[in-house]
């Protein structure tokens, strides 16, 4: 009888706990899938990006650049290269990021006016990416393993059915928000919307995808906006001429590339 009781309790506990544990696993799996789809599609690619920065007075600045990506390994290290076309006074300026999943990134900037490559600080992924509302982390991705995830419901975003996932940083020091809620597209697993909250549950940042296109069979968010809700400024990036053909090998993302941009991307 005692054994039956024990078994009963055990079964009860299992039944009670399983959905939760399962949900956590599911949430983490979903976020991994989403991260892969969003940041690691194919082995790399290239796109011509238009960046519109809107300040709190509504004044805008435009930047145009080519962005090249090459994955060293899925969900691991990556290489990013950015070559600026506009505005004219910074054209030919180039930017190289070695994303190191295990530690700090490496970043270099090439200044054509001085023909100088300068290494710039990279110990904080939360710093702004070239003065925009996107951080380096937003551009290259925050690894799902840094957060605990929880599915909190179903919803729609961009007219598509999505699953809402609440992600809380395991170490609060690694983020400048308390938690975020992501709308993961049920069909493509792309992130459609992300709301960032501070410790008082006030929404401080908002990420929104404006448009999804399928390129080379890969669903791609071709228009993305990040808004700073406290500072009331935002940045929209739009992707054109997208290709998922890996443009260069990973080891070609080096200082030589910074100084000599491939002619295909200097138009």
């Amino acid at each position, binding site marked *: 009888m005692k054994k039956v009781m024990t078994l009963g309790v055990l079964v009860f506990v299992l039944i009670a706990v399983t959905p939760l544990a399962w949900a956590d696993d599911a949430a983490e799996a979903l976020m991994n899938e989403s991260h892969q789809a969003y940041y690691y599609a194919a082995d790399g690619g290239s796109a011509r990006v238009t960046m519109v*920065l809107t*300040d*709190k*007075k509504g*004044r*805008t*600045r435009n930047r145009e650049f080519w962005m090249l990506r090459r994955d060293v390994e899925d969900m691991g290290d990556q290489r990013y290269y950015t070559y600026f076309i506009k*505005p004219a*006074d*910074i054209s030919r*300026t180039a*930017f190289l990021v070695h994303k190191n999943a295990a530690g700090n990134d490496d970043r270099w*900037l090439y*200044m*054509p*006016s*001085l023909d*100088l490559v*300068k*290494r*710039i*600080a990279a*110990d*904080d992924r939360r*710093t*702004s990416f*070239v*003065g*925009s509302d996107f951080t380096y982390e937003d551009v290259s991705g925050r690894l799902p393993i840094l957060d605990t995830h929880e599915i909190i419901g179903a919803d729609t975003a961009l007219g598509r059915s999505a699953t809402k996932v609440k992600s809380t940083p395991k170490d609060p020091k690694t983020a400048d928000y308390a938690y975020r809620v992501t709308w993961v597209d049920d069909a493509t697993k792309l992130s459609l919307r992300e709301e960032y909250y501070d410790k*008082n549950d006030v929404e401080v940042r908002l990420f929104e995808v404006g448009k999804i296109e399928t390129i080379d069979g890969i669903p791609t968010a071709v228009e993305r906006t990040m808004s700073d809700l*406290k*500072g009331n*400024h935002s940045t929209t990036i739009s992707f054109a001429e997208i290709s998922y053909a890996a443009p260069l090998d990973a080891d070609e993302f080096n200082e030589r590339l910074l100084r000599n941009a491939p002619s295909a991307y200097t138009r």
Partner: protein
Amino acid sequence: MPQIRHRIIRFSVDHPRLIVIAAILITIALIIPIPNAVIDTDPENMLASGEPVRAVHKEIKEEFSLSDFLVVGFVGQTDLTAPDFIERLGLLVAAVEEMESVVTEDIWAPSTVDDIYRTPDGTLVIGPLTGPRTGWEDNQPSVAAKIAGNPILRGKIASGDGRAVALYIPLESKTYAHDVSEQVKAEMAAIGGFGEYHIAGLPVAEETFGTEMFRQMAISAPLAGILIFLLMLIFFRRFSVVASPMIVAVMTVIWTMGLLVLLKFPLHIMSSMIPIFLMPIAVLDSIHILSEFHDRYQQSSSRRAAITSTLEELFAPMLFTSITTFVGFISLVSAPIPPVRVFGVFVATGVAVAWVLSMTFNPAYAMLLPERVLARFGRLDEGRSFLGRLLPRAGRFAAKARIPILVVSVLALAFATVGISKIVINDNPTKWFKPAHPIRVAEEKLGEHLAGTYEAYLLFDATGTADETVKDPAVLTYMEGLQRHLEQMPQVGATTGVTDIVKKVRFELKDGDPAANSIPNNAEEIAQELFLYEAAGGDSEDLYKFITPDGGKAVLWLQLREGDNLAVAEVVQATERYTRTVPPPAGLTFAWGGLTYVNIVWQDKMVSGMRNALLGSFAVVLIMMIILLRSVILGLISMVPLSVTIAMVYGLVGWTGKSYDMPIAVLSSLTLGLSIDFAIHFLKRGQEIYARRGSLAATLEELFEEPARAIARNIVVIALGFVPLLFSSLVPYITVGVFFLLIMGLSGVATLFILPALLHVRGARALQRWGAVRVRDDGTIDEMAVLAQSGKETVA
């Protein structure tokens, strides 16, 4: 005229109840809107909202997102940038970020600003100032040293030795200044260990002003009322009689303030002084009425006859004194300063109200008093009172010593003229607070240790240049040159511009090469260095505090250790000289903003505006005096005592070196309108007595009885009525109090001495009007003319 006079007087005496009830009803109706008064403490509103300088100031503030801020300054004996203090400061900043109305992202504190440096391996880093420098390991510099090495932060966030640290809290709305500063104080007490601190900044100053203005109206004006009431009680000894002018004064204040609020005018530092101005002014006519009534009551057959004859005698002088006072205040309308205009119009309105109430309410009140209250009124022998004994002696002295009196007056004028030439026009709204006031102390301490808390902004507009951008070597080199030029001036604590960001980035980029601490001569390099600043982690919004996103305009911040208009004007002039001698790049234009600059603009406008108002009211009052006294010479003579007085007082301003500031400028024309009153009563009533008695000596003798007593009482009331202002904590109020005491006291005394002296010098016919009584050369009177004169008066 006489018909109107008779009608007004008869109406008041015949319908006392109607008048009292009507007055009470109007008072109740106008007291209702007063609690809805809107306070305006914005110093910018010294200028009309359409003033170009305000538009530029606003444009600069908006274009570069510059908010008004509170400054919390810490002063200590040790380096306050040491980790433990910085940690406390970080906690404080975190708490401040949660406070309502704080523009969180623009808070400037050691924990919120960026450090720009390079690591030993040459990596450029733009990161938190208070964090350790990457790669510097054991050679970490102190926060103070990092600030000293950064021209963008130097003199703002901390002093070089770290003994002074500042926290800048920008506010969305100034109305939260008090709340935020109270919360900051509470937070500091909770965290503990902050030591000596000071809270400064415009929003705090304005808040204090608002409170002070209310105190002014709620305490000083009633205090003036009580003081005046006591003085009148001493003069007339009858509470129920003296109550009448007090009711007139209180009603005048309520009607005027009620109208002001009803017409949606805000309460400004100027308009807050309306009650305390009206209190004494409103009782002046009543004092004359009471003095005369006091003398006549016991000799008259009836109360009605005594009142009627008193008002008949005083009607003309009271009308004219009210009109001249009205002119003195209404002349302020010509000032280009809206608050001064509002002040002038409403005090003038109050003067008119006071006249109407004096002429109607006083007689109505007297008619309603029970007969027994008045039974013993005026029985006291005035001749034995202090004034009654003193004044006739003064009159005899003035007659005897006429030459010395005039010589002294001329000497005084000469002394004054020299003094006036020494007048220094200067003002500083911060110095409207007393030296011991926390704001002044904060200002001084922070000026001593940091680069100063007074801000001026110089806008560089390059939208008209060939490249339409300030990111041009010629433009930035020019800005840099001007910065170095202006920094040589002692009052300039620091200048900060986009130049400093470019130079700092370039210096670090080129591995600390001293030659690189300069503006590059290549536009692309400038653009790329600014881009590098952003790419390496610098905040774009910080950049936009110095340059617009499109690069078309830049603003140079000037931090001044002194906020005196003179000191600011010197900086402006130095800039103008620089732009004349060193031609700026073609198409580059400049514009000034910042409150310190707005202040010098309104000062200029006020000084010229007030001079015109003074000249204008002098001319108008002179013409009125000529008409009233029907004599050009007497008109001119009547202006002498107050001219000598005003010259003397302004001469004293010059000699003592006191700055000719806002209150002093405003007072000139209105004291003229008030102090002429003494001369009007003296000369007008002198003429009336002269017409009756026909001899100058006899006239003067009689003048120094009741009329002189009434004038002396007025002098005492108007001079002492402003005494409560001396106890204000704001300097302009004190200045007004001292000035009125001086001008009213001096001009009253001058009237009683200089006028008889001048009349004696002029001779027996001095008080003659044109076409009136004829006096023969031997001093006897043409009897027919006297008859004709009195007949004319009666017929009319």
